[in-house]
């Protein structure tokens, strides 16, 4: 393996001009949209470079060009001192560019080492059989370097957590001797502790000369990790700055081109009577004796680390899983929820965490995606009323500011923020009283985020009960009236808005006695 000497970080008059990557005048058109309009990106060797911008700013498109998924229409790329034409991902990998995607796609029923060496399995001396021993050894070495000895190279990928799967992806990048690793939203699905470990490893690798391009929507991470920041907006290059010359406020302003004065537009609303209460909900192995109440107009923030059982709890309340024991009361009446159908009949709505896995009908249109649970309302006799469906969907498109050429567009072609709005529109059309949102702003740009927060706040104002799972501390603290902190399947604390601090949540979430 080739490691580079640490590069001096003496930015100034004699600026460090040792660029690992220089992309200039990059243009890319898609039918109907100019995705990239003469943009540039220059990454210094051995640094972490944050690429920032709202959804649709062109970050992903540029990265897809860099690793050879998309072809650029114009511009030039100099990588490691040489001008390169990146034809495909194989070329990119061979020359030392790797990407770790936001949505990881391991081969689930193959082992860690097979995943790392897929396509270039190491052969034994006879050149016929795969040398499992060699692969296991090399994998173990890389894992050790990343301080992830807890992963067994022969473990199947299905058995690993998201954070570990991510580490395996990094292992893979290192096994390719990558000089530049692109990470797209690497922290969107991992806990804070795992995140710290990831950052530590990234820092360590930069000292060995590896460079990183880091895409995230979480501001504090940018300032924790990045050396340089490049901002794109609407397919245009805005600026590249040293991270130390910027602050949170400036960055947001550059990204949106306007000032966001209030990130969490939580309004004080009159909180009504208890509307839904959970008593001693238990599902073996997932959660135990969970009890709390939600009042009308109240936003409950559900905090906790990954694996605390929050998503599973909400899925069970919604009837997606079966409850072992415990009771649910709505308006002081005991209800039985045997499946999502009963939950919907009881005016509940669940906006799931994983948009693609459990939310969207990807090959279907925006219209179909919105209308599906409300079809009953739009049928006359047996037949659907297409005209009124089109009308309501178009109204939703305008009201939720969903950016799509038409409601007949396939939902898979929309950006993450717009997909999320489609899902919210879908569930609000069912006229729910209890709205459960699981990580409603995960992987969504700043602008859409604040729109979604405003929406949630408005719903509370209308007297709806909101339960919001969120792993983002500022979001939980900014939006919630009560914060229910879960730890290993139990409710560790219920904290009022007035008394909450970041530390208090974290202590409870990590099971520390207070």
């Amino acid at each position, binding site marked *: 393996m080739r490691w580079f000497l640490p590069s001096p970080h003496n930015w100034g008059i004699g600026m460090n001009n040792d660029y690992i990557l220089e992309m200039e005048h990059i243009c890319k058109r898609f*039918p*109907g*949209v*100019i*995705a990239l309009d003469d943009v540039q990106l220059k990454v210094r060797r051995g640094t972490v470079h944050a690429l920032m911008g709202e959804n*649709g700013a062109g970050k992903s498109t540029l990265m897809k060009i860099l690793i050879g998924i998309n072809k650029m229409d114009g511009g030039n790329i100099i990588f490691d001192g040489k001008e390169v034409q990146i034809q495909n991902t194989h070329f990119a990998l061979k020359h030392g560019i790797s990407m770790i995607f936001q949505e990881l796609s391991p081969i689930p029923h193959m082992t860690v080492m097979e995943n790392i060496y897929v396509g270039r399995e190491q052969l034994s001396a006879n050149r016929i059989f795969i040398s499992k021993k060699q692969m296991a050894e090399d994998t173990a070495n890389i894992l050790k370097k990343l301080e992830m000895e807890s992963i067994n190279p022969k473990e199947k990928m299905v058995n690993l957590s998201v954070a570990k799967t991510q580490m395996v992806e990094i292992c893979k990048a290192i096994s390719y001797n990558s000089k530049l690793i692109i990470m797209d939203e690497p922290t969107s699905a991992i806990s804070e502790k795992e995140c710290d470990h990831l950052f530590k490893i990234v820092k360590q690798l930069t000292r060995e000369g590896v460079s990183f391009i880091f895409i995230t929507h979480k501001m504090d991470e940018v300032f924790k990790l990045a050396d340089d920041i490049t901002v794109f*907006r*609407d*397919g*245009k290059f*805005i*600026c590249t700055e040293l991270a130390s010359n910027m602050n949170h406020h400036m960055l947001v302003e*550059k990204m949106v*081109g*306007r000032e966001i004065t209030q990130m969490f537009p939580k309004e004080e609303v009159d909180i009504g009577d208890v509307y839904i209460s959970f008593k001693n909900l238990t599902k073996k192995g997932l959660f135990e004796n969970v009890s709390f109440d939600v009042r009308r107009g109240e936003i409950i923030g559900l905090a906790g680390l990954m694996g605390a059982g929050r998503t599973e709890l909400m899925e069970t309340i*919604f009837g*997606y899983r079966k409850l072992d024991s415990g009771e649910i009361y709505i308006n002081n009446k005991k209800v039985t929820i045997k*499946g*999502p*159908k009963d*939950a*919907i009949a009881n005016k509940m709505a*669940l906006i*799931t965490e994983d948009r693609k*896995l*459990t*939310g*969207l*009908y*990807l*090959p*279907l249109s925006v219209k*179909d995606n919105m*209308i*599906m*649970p409300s*079809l*009953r309302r739009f*049928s006359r006799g*047996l*037949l*659907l009323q*297409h005209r009124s469906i089109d009308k309501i969907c178009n109204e939703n498109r305008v009201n939720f500011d969903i950016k799509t*050429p038409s409601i007949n567009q*396939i939902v898979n*072609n929309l950006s993450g923020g717009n997909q999320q709005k489609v899902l919210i529109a879908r569930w609000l059309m069912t006229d729910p009283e209890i709205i459960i949102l699981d990580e409603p702003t995960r992987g969504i740009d700043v602008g859409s985020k604040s729109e979604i927060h405003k929406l949630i706040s408005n719903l509370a104002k209308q007297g709806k009960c909101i339960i919001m799972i969120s792993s983002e501390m500022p979001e939980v603290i900014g939006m919630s009236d009560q914060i229910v902190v879960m730890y290993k399947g139990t409710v560790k604390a219920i904290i009022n808005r007035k008394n909450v601090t970041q530390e208090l949540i974290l202590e409870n979430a990590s099971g520390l006695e207070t």
Partner: protein
Amino acid sequence: MAHSSNQKPIKIESNSFGSQFSKVIDKLGIIVVLIFLLILMSLLTDKFLTPMNLTNVVRQISFIALIAIGVTSIIITTGIDLSSGSVVGLTSVVVASAAHPGQFPLVVTILIGLSVGLVVGLINGFLVAYAKLPPFIATMGTWTTVRGLALLYSNGRPVNDLKDEFTYLGGGRFLGVPVPILVLIAVAILTHLLLTSTRLGRHVFAIGGNEQAAIIGGINVKIVKLAVYVYASTLAALSGLLLTGRIASGQSALGVGYELDAIAAAVIGGTSLTGGIGSIVGTISGALVIGVINNGMDLLNVNMYWQQIAKGMIIVIAVFLDSQKKKAK
């Protein structure tokens, strides 16, 4: 720093005639192929574009097309049905043995025939939706079981001596149009409406688009799947019933290989095997494409064997073009 660059990405309005036209082609790709074939065949031979020949083509495909309509609905849910050809065979011998002169009223005979499909469909649907078998395996099981039942029931011998009213269903004409064509048109319109304009139909697409999301959305996935398999097998039985009328004899070997022709028609017509995408217009066009090519080659005296090769190549090319189209997006 360019603070002024606050405009949104430029969207090209798609109102011009050209882009509208390309949109239509995009949507109805297979229809364009069909029209091209029609023109080609009528240039190659003057026997092609006659009312009699065209009626023949449509009647020939109507039996497969009926099955294909059902299997399209199944494929949209990401399922498959391999048993439809066997259902044709079993229906044929069962319905023929209930269609002797003076035995039952015609309605009863028809209901007996359709009930064969109903039962097989219930079994398929149960195995897939409730026992959670992969559709390929479940219907492969019924495919051979049902064919065996057909042989057992008839002892492998044809069932003859059918009443005239019954043979009219397959061989007769109403207002000059062969009855199977009229049945096909009725079923096609009905299914098109069912899929596009009823809740059940939209749920079929939802399940194929994302089954997990469909469950969360409160859709009773099991019932919908069961209904789709029952519907498809019943259409296969209908096809077998008409075909038996047409040849005026119950044959246990009737419909061998039809399941694959039906799947081919669906796939050529743009139905996606990964689910969530498909239309009846497409499937009928797919069946017509196969029919026109076979008929054209018959008229041109092309060797029978070439027809098989041609069909295989069309399937591959159709799916290839479809995947290219998706890639371009």
